[in-house]
Structures are given as structure tokens and as C-alpha cells.
């Protein structure tokens, strides 16, 4: 009986530690996230650019996100101003085309977002 109680309390203690670590990690990582990048549309833009290392055209982002020009321009401008995304203009079949790529700081930001969600997922696992 004593052994049973000891094992049970050890399990509770170890689960509590896992949960504590996960919650602490979630909060700590969230504090590190750049507040300018952490809206859902901006997160998605960063993830898309992360997956496509060559960069993406404005019109590709627009058709994938299905948001208005005003919203997309505002989000992209904010990301460029935050130093996460780089914008350049290229000649595309004799037309000018805006291409967006992730800056080094942007890559680090996406990896930080990933870390945040990993920590969040661990919190969920520990609560089950």
C-alpha cells in the first residue's frame, strides 16, 4: 500500500513537472515572438515563404490566402518593416513583378513560432 502510494505520487509529481515545463516553455517562447509577425495571416505568410525558399510572387500569396489587396499589402509592409521579409522587383515576361522572400531574421522567427507550437502541443499532451 505504501509502495502504491509512493508510485502514484511519483507519477503525479513527474506529470506536474512535465506540465510545468511545457507551460513555462510556452510562455517563455510566446514572450520572444515578434508581436508584429504574430497574427494568423502574417504567420501563414511567413510559413509559406519558409516552405518556398525561392520566394513567392504577390499574386501567388493573394490567391493562396484569399484576402483583400489592402489587407495583404498591410501585412507584407509590416513584415518588410519588421525586417522579416524582403521585397524585390523582377522582370517577368517584360512586366515588373514583386517577389517576397524570407530574411534570415524571418527564418529565425518561423523557427521560434514552431518552437512555440511544439511547447503548446506538449502542454496539451501533459494535460490529457
Amino acid at each position, binding site marked *: 500500500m505504501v509502495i502504491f502510494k509512493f508510485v502514484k505520487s511519483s507519477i503525479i509529481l513527474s506529470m506536474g513537472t512535465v506540465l510545468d515545463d511545457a507551460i513555462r516553455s510556452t510562455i517563455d517562447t510566446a514572450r520572444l515572438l515578434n508581436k508584429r509577425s504574430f497574427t494568423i495571416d502574417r504567420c501563414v505568410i511567413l510559413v509559406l515563404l519558409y516552405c*518556398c525558399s525561392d520566394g513567392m510572387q504577390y499574386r501567388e500569396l493573394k490567391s493562396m490566402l484569399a484576402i483583400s489587396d489592402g489587407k495583404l499589402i498591410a501585412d507584407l509592409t509590416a513584415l518588410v518593416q519588421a525586417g522579416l521579409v524582403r521585397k524585390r522587383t523582377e522582370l517577368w515576361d517584360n512586366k515588373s513583378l514583386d517577389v517576397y522572400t524570407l530574411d534570415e531574421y524571418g527564418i529565425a522567427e518561423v523557427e521560434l513560432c514552431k518552437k512555440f507550437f511544439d511547447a503548446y502541443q506538449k502542454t496539451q499532451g501533459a494535460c490529457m
Partner: protein
Amino acid sequence: MLDDLKTVAAVLKFFGFTGWEPRNDYVYRFNVQKIAYLCKVMGIRLNSYDFSIYLHGPYSQALATDYNACAAIVNVDPRDQSNDHAFSGGEREALRHMKDVVFSNPLMQAHPAEFLEALSTVVFFIINEDDYSHDSLVGKVKEIKPHLSARILSIAVNVAKELLISIKPPSAALVDELSAWERMGDGLDKDTQ
């Protein structure tokens, strides 16, 4: 992986597609992706490159990783005429067919990037969904790439069918449809005689 990148570079030389400059880096690589996809479909050995359609597609992240790591291999100098890559007989035939059907098309001069984008996307849907219907193909491509013009898409569908006829025989349904049209044509011939 680097062997496949060298194959891509050899293909670019074969087609004379060697216009890389620092200021058109993005567009050049975009076109390289589409050409590499078409080559893979036509049977050129590019085993380490898998292409997906949804993001920037057809697009291979492995190919992007390779040319970002070894840019000098694919940024082919137009003055470099040497091409000692050993293509098999079948591969050489496929490349010649591509040159005749795709690279001789006037759109390759006027709108190469949009034409290659439209063509490779149409080919992707034909290969993966066995869809040969003109309207359906145009609709599917337009849905994910609304910026492509109807004119370029329409030409791309016809070029894609011509390109693939040697490697992907039309489905039974399409053969039936073509036979039906042929029979109707026979009937019309008799009526007019």
C-alpha cells in the same frame, strides 16, 4: 542529388535555356523548376526531385535546396556550348520532342515564364488526375493560378496533350469520344458526297 542537378544543367544547355543574370535570378529559377518538372514527366532521370503542385507548383523543394547550395551548376553561361552529359537514347528522343513541341512555340519567346507555368500545371493535372477535358483543365488551373490568361492556358492545354501523347496514351473514355467524332465525320463525308 548533385547528379540530378547536373542533369538539369545539361537539359538547360540542350534547350539553349541559359539566360541567367543576377537581376533575373527569381524568374530564371522559376523557369528551371518548370523545365525540370516537364523533363521528369518525359522520362529524364531526376529521381531525387519530387514535385508538388499547391505551393508555387509544380515545385520541388529538393531542387531548390540543391541549386541554392550549388548555384554555379545551374546558372549556365550562354557562351558555354559544351554538353558532355550522357543522356540515354530514349532521353535524347524525349528532349528532342520537348524541343519541337515546347521550345519552338512562339509563347516561349513572348511569355516564357507564364507559358511554362501554365504548361507544367496542366501537365500535372493530366498526369495525376488523368483529366484530358479542355474546359476542366482550364478550370482547375485557373482556380489555383487565377493570374494566368485564358489565351495562354488554352494554348498550354493543347501543347500539353501534344507533349504527352508519346508517353501517356489517351484514356479509354477519350479514345471512345474521338472514335465517336470520327464516325460522325465519316457520316458527314458521306452526306456531302
